């Protein structure tokens, strides 16, 4: 959806340019954004069928893959994990070898419906076990010995989307307090943060007040202040629009009452609202289960599965399922052998999940080889950049070689 010929102005600058003739600037400017948004919304076409959306879900802290996709027929699994091993009869079977942790009922049903691809044993060469460093590697899609300062999505934006949507439309939206590294790019692209700030009502109050304060320049404002004011006003147009889309949304499914599910609901709201955003980023955590893993991981996996299941149902209800694919990633899996604290330490490879109506559901790749010594880590089989390449080329219609720096063989899940 490129700029329509007589699209309504979506920035204050545009509005003013088109002429608020004869009306006091300040008086009108205060109301303009909301007014515009309301009328723009009425005329806004439905979310384009051509523009696909990717939802990235970070499992922060390093999710233990072996207790998520459980190799229930492998004796070695139970020998490595005398306390943490999930009993065979509790496992939600996927095939004759592996199945889901009982906490993953949501994910299991999605897999059975063919909407969830489970890509097994994903990692990269010379794995790094530092949270910060390995997260860098996954988000920048670098080799483990390189430091890159741009994210793979940022480079995708550089490569594919320069100069496309109007300034008010963010290309990437993150539902986290900080901008994620995946969005960092060489060129500037509008991204937007929907950070949880004390609840929706408080977010709205904050925006109301901010707009009021912003429209009160001093009489002889200096140039720096003026420049700041104009830049901020433009940014607020997006904020208002987003707020309205979130407030007015009627979900097509019931979401669990936890922050993660709420974030997915908000993603659905923005997609349904017609925002031309291509990539959303959500984070769940922390999966860093060094001690007492069972209960903690179970709770997180349940949150993940139930949230994703609701999200998928919601998209289907709004007939958006064909347009959206979600993908999880985590900085590493965890050590096959459990530690003394009923937990696991940092490891390497792990499965990741890709969810969507257009995904080829089911297991991809092979389970990890558990022929490992004490305190040894799993050997990956699928390089995560192959997963990225698949998504970039086949889902986002991008150029993965340009984005990732070289060619990675795509996989078969889309």
């Amino acid at each position, binding site marked *: 959806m490129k700029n329509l010929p007589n699209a309504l102005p979506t920035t204050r600058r545009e509005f003013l340019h088109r002429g608020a003739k004869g009306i006091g600037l300040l008086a009108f400017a205060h109301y303009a954004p909301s007014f515009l948004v309301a009328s723009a919304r009425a005329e806004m076409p439905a979310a384009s069928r051509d523009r696909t959306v990717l939802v990235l879900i970070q499992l*922060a*802290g*390093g999710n233990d893959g072996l207790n998520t996709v459980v190799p229930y027929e492998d004796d070695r699994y139970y020998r490595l994990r005398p306390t943490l091993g999930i009993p065979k009869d509790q496992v939600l079977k996927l095939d004759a070898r592996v199945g889901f942790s009982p906490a993953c009922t949501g994910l299991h049903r999605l897999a059975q419906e063919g909407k969830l691809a489970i890509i097994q044993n994903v990692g990269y060469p*010379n794995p*790094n076990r*530092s*949270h*910060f*460093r390995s997260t860098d590697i996954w988000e920048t899609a670098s080799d*483990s*010995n390189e*430091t890159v*300062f741009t994210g793979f999505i940022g480079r995708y934006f550089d490569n594919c989307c320069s100069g496309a949507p109007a*300034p008010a439309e963010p290309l990437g939206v993150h539902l986290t*307090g*900080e*901008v994620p*590294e995946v969005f*960092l790019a060489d060129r*500037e692209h*509008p*991204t*937007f*943060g929907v*950070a*949880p*700030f*004390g609840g929706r009502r*408080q977010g709205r*109050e*904050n925006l*109301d*007040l*901010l707009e*009021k*304060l*912003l429209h*009160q*320049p*001093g*009489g002889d404002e*200096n*140039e*720096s*202040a003026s*420049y*700041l*004011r104009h*830049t*901020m006003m*433009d*940014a607020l147009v997006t904020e208002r629009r987003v707020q309205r889309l979130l407030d007015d949304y009627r979900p097509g499914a019931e979401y669990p009452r936890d922050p993660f599910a709420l974030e997915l609901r908000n993603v659905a709201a923005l997609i349904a609202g017609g925002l031309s955003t291509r990539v959303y980023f959500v*984070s769940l*955590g*922390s999966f*860093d289960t*060094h001690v007492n893993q069972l209960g903690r991981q179970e709770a997180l996996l349940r949150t993940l599965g139930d949230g994703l299941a609701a999200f998928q149902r919601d998209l289907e209800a709004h007939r958006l399922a064909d347009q959206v694919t979600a993908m999880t990633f985590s900085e590493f899996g965890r050590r096959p052998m459990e530690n003394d604290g009923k937990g696991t330490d940092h490891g390497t490879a792990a499965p990741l999940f890709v969810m969507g109506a257009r995904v080829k559901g089911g297991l991809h790749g092979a389970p990890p080889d558990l022929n490992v010594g004490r305190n040894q880590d799993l050997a990956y089989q699928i390089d995560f950049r192959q997963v990225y390449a698949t998504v970039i080329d086949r889902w986002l219609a991008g150029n993965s070689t340009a984005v990732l720096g070289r060619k990675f063989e795509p996989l078969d899940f889309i």
Partner: protein
Amino acid sequence: MKLALSPLEAWQPLPAGEWNEAAARHLLRRVAWSAPPGEVARALREGLAAALERLFPAAPPLMPTPPSVVTLEEDTPAFARKLAAATPENRRELLRQARERSRDALLDLTVDWLQHARQPDCAATEKWTLFLSDVYVVAAQKVPNTALLCRHQELLRAHGAGPAPALTKAVLRSPAMINYLDLQQSRAGAPNENFARELLELFTLGIGHYTENDIKEAARAFTGYRQRQGEFFFARRLHDAGGKTIFRRTGRFDGDAVIDLIYQQPAAGTHLPARLTRFYLTDEALPGEHLAALGAWWRGTGYDLRQLTHRYFSSRLFFDAQFRGACIKSPVQYYLGLLQDFSLDVPPLPRRIVPAFRLMGQMLYNPPNVRGWVGGREWISSTTLEARRLVARALFQPIDRARLNADEQEALESARAAGRAAFTVSDDGLRAHAGPDPEATAARLLEALLPLAPADAYRRALAAALTGDGGPTRSASPANGRLRNAAVAILETPEYQLC
């Protein structure tokens, strides 16, 4: 720029009668990060000259070297030996590990520096050190060794109050600089011009005050200045000891001699003050004559940096009305000022802080190029403003410990045990800003947070928001929510981005 002051008047000290609260606040917001009422009162009591003596002392407070940097340095000789004895494959692995240790140390260094700089007694020195590091640039991107970056900063800090020529000569010997501007590759017969060029163009004189030939000849003089395992040494046999002609003088100049020649040029008196102006005062260039007057005086002091700071920051020009509240805060200023305004500590969470600085456009220890950070309006775009707003909002949300990984939780615990626990604005912290009624609260907040009084309508809108629908309420919780909302909103307005 319109200046009513003549070049002579500009640099005269501010008359005693004009040293008032507004002036003290302007001074503190510019030479440090914010103007806490206690610091303002202190400065007023002492008088401007004494305040500057204290803020810019002869012996600047030093920052302890972070333990991770010390470890890096201690390991260096052993590491070099291991590397020399390793197979090619092991070499790669060793180098990879070394890079990772260095990167982790850089995160520690960044957080340590912020914690150090946040202290009111260190703020002015650290801002001055930051200024000098914006002139004598080295960057992590090209110098991935955190120990070198740390020592470079220590050098700038230690020499920052002495004569500029001595500082420049120390920079010539900084291993980080030797790597950054390719002195390590420079040798007699094949001199590398990088250092010579940037020294003349950016560090000392500025474009137009040297010739290409000066650069070529100076580059010859800078051969042989090397570093080995983080220690400077002079490699005599690599040094070009022949006769050179620089600035129309001829002699067998070495690096120090060239630096002496540089400081004989008139432009040496005005270049650093011009950069100082851009960093501390305004985006616009000062009129040539005004700079020249200051430059001539500064030269007469032997280019004493401490005297420069005292003269500059006590001058009538510095306190001129047109400059008040007109400077766009850098990300560091914004962050540290924000922490000071709400009496908060820097949390030991590099994973939150470092990306925030990157997004705000100022990666500490990593300026984008040898020009340093341009500053001023360049700090501002919708992305960087969004980043600032996220930073402000995060300080008003309790830290969600469940989202932290194990290392971070531990670091937080240690900090709490050490008494540094105020990382986000608590209800009590917020109430400290409250007044007896909404009007008074609005007035107090604005007084504490903004450099200049905002428009009346701004203040009224704030007071109205603090009152809420249906009049003032006695109930603590909604009032606190309104206060929180008001505080965050102020932090997001243009007025708060200025100092």
